[in-house]
């Protein structure tokens, strides 16, 4: 594959945006936040207030 064709392909891919990276990041973040809220609502709150 010559350099020009490769550059064109690269430009096409970049123009589409980082969909894969966003999917991975959103999924990872959603898992972490779900675990955070699960601990908050199902462990921390039922254990009662302290001060």
């Amino acid at each position, binding site marked *: 594959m010559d350099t020009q064709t490769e550059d064109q392909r690269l430009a096409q891919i*970049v*123009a589409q945006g980082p969909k894969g990276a966003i999917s991975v*990041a959103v999924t990872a973040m959603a898992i972490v936040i779900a675990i955070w809220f699960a601990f908050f609502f199902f462990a921390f709150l039922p254990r009662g*207030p302290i001060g």
Partner: protein
Amino acid sequence: MAETLNAAQQPPLGQAGERAARLWTRSMIALMVVLLGVIVFTSAHWGLHPPSRIETIDSTSLHQGGEFSEANLGTLIAPDGSAVVRVVAQQYAFVPSCVLVPAGVPVTMRLASADAVHGFLIQGTNVNAMVVPGYVTTVRTTFQEIGERLMPCHEFCGVGHQAMWAHVRIVDAKQFPFEDAKAKGVSCG
């Protein structure tokens, strides 16, 4: 196989990439605001704050009188109707080893160490603090569920650490000896 591009050769993000980066940045800021908002709301709603303060005491003379003398240990009912639990942590036991508290009544736990650094937590609750010699540890909570909970030492305090634990017995307020507890500390062991 394509050569690895160095930083100068990296392609620009492009409009779609820049949009995605902006969107991600805004999303993360919004997420941080939501999480901090939840924490701030909970703290304000519950009056939640770190469960200790700087209050000093002479650990070498706990047994000689004062707040942590024998008659004061256990649960006392304060004039405002709340319960004050005083416990001495020492190698390798909590005194008293069975704490009796009424359910649904605000409880202030005050602990002092007679020797090494100890810690305590009450199973199934958010009560969890260190007990450092020279300081009084204060934790306020309200036990809602009747039952018995373990209260182990959670700071390694010596060779007998694993055997250092107490019980917290939470009883119905009707069964709690309020009148006795106004005069001296009551406990269940």
